[in-house]
Each structure stands twice: as structure tokens, then as C-alpha cells.
């Protein structure tokens, strides 16, 4: 964690200097006033500048990464966590061997872990970000599979002239399919049912 201690004529001035040095905004830090400024007697004796300690709060991404590394450790798994973070989202990618246990059947464990990391990372934080977790490129591969499946089933729906209902999927996975088939004039897609059993329907346009 980064922190600096700065002095200034007033508390605000000291904080401003500290923010400039850390290169972050006011909402990303915690400020502790170490010494209130004092003008001294008649402005001559014992005048003292304000002194503050400014500590950079970990970003949601940093928090999620630390927690994930901790989880890997207690599960005795070897994996390297790569973090990518921007204004809206955090992407965590675990690279390593034998990480199937983190993925689970159809990514169930991966989704559960992603959900928990998301909650933990954005707790007590003014900035809410979407946390995306991938292990061993699983999501990327799954996305390709889903896209291929979408195209194949779209053809089938068109040929048969009937609706095709897919199996239940997570919102993320449904999104991939909707996107893959967006804007076509021969078929269209929608979802039906309630979470967590919502499923996509591919329907031919008449």
C-alpha cells in the first residue's frame, strides 16, 4: 500500500500535495491528520504547519487479486494471478496447472468464485466495478464454443422453421449467444424462465 506524509500551511494544502505526489483522486485515499496547523503566538513563535498522512486505498482490483491469491494458497493451488483494471471493470486471470477444481462443472465454481470476489472487492468502496474471473482461459474457450453452438443452432432453427430452446445458462453466457446472433434478419433470440434457469430461445423470423 502506498502512503505519503506531507506538510502544508493548512490541512487542505497538505492533502493536495500528497494527492499530487500519489497521482490519485481524493476518493481513492484515506487521510489522517497528524498535526493540526498552529499559527503560534502573534504569528511569531511556535507556528507549526499542518501534517497529514495520506494512504492510498487498495482499488477493487487489488482487493480482489489479494483475496484470490489467498484462496489459491489455502487450497494449495499453484497459480499466477494477472490483473487488468480500468474504470468499469476488473479482469482477473489465473494461469497455472491443475486448476480445474476452480472451474467446476460448466464453470459453476468459477461463477461462484467470481460472484464472491465481486462482492468482496466492491464492499465499502465508492466505485463499483464488474469483476470478471477466468481460469486457464476457460471462459475464452467456452465463449468460442458458445458462439459456434449459436451459429449451428440458428441454422437449425431456420431450416426447421421452429423455435430452439437452449439449456439454462448464466447471464454472461447468454449474452455471448445474444451477441453472436444479433442483427440477423432470418432469426432472433430472447430469453425465458427465471434465474438461475433462464434459457435462450432461438426463433426463426417469419
Amino acid at each position, binding site marked *: 500500500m502506498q502512503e505519503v506524509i506531507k506538510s502544508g500551511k493548512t490541512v487542505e494544502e497538505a492533502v493536495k500535495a500528497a494527492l499530487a505526489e500519489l497521482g490519485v483522486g481524493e476518493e481513492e485515499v484515506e487521510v489522517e491528520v497528524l498535526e493540526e496547523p498552529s499559527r503560534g503566538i502573534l504569528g511569531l513563535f511556535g507556528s507549526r504547519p499542518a501534517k497529514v498522512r495520506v494512504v492510498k486505498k487498495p482499488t477493487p482490483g487489488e482487493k480482489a487479486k489479494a*483475496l484470490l491469491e*489467498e*484462496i489459491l494458497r*489455502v*487450497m494449495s493451488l499453484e497459480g499466477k494471478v494477472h490483473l487488468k483494471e480500468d474504470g468499469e471493470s476488473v479482469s482477473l486471470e489465473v494461469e497455472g496447472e491443475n486448476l480445474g*477444481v*476452480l472451474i*467446476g462443472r460448466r464453470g*459453476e*465454481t468459477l*461463477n*461462484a*468464485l467470481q*460472484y*464472491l470476489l465481486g*462482492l*468482496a472487492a466492491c*464492499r465499502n468502496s465508492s466505485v463499483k466495478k464488474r469483476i470478471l474471473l477466468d481460469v486457464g482461459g476457460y471462459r475464452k474457450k467456452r465463449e468460442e464454443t458458445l458462439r459456434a453452438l449459436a451459429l449451428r443452432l440458428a441454422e437449425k432453427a431456420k431450416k426447421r422453421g421452429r423455435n430452439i430452446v437452449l439449456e439454462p445458462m448464466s447471464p454472461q453466457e447468454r449474452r455471448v449467444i445474444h451477441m453472436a446472433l444479433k442483427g440477423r434478419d432470418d432469426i432472433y433470440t430472447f430469453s425465458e424462465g427465471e434465474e438461475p434457469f433462464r434459457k435462450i430461445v432461438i426463433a426463426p423470423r417469419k
Partner: protein
Amino acid sequence: MKELVEILAKALVDHPEAVDVRLVEREKSVRIELRVAPEDVGKVIGKQGRVARAFRQVVKAAAARSGKKVVVEIL
């Protein structure tokens, strides 16, 4: 296993110091009892038990290798 539940619970609550995890070992199963501060109970259960479900899923995965059935109880 105990550590995993502790880490996850502490990351979600406002009073990590009140998180208490106990293991009750049985022949073929392990019962993990999770206790948190009263005002944090909602945070580890979640809307319609969503957090609790995710919790159990992750713990189940971690426990798979031990070959024992694991039950997470929030008390």
C-alpha cells in the same frame, strides 16, 4: 477448509473479528459452522441465499479432493 471459509467470510463482512468457524468432523462428512456478527448475517446469506450458495459451491470444490461431504451451516 476451515481457513478457506474464514478468509471468504472475513472478506464479506463488516466485523471480521466476529467471524468464527468451527469444524465438526463426522465419519463421512464435515460440518462447517460459520458464525458472524448478527448484523453481518445477511451479508453471508445474500438475497435469496445467493451468497450462501456461492459459498457452498466454492467450499464443495475445495473439499472434493478430501472425498468427504462438506456441509456449510450459517448459524
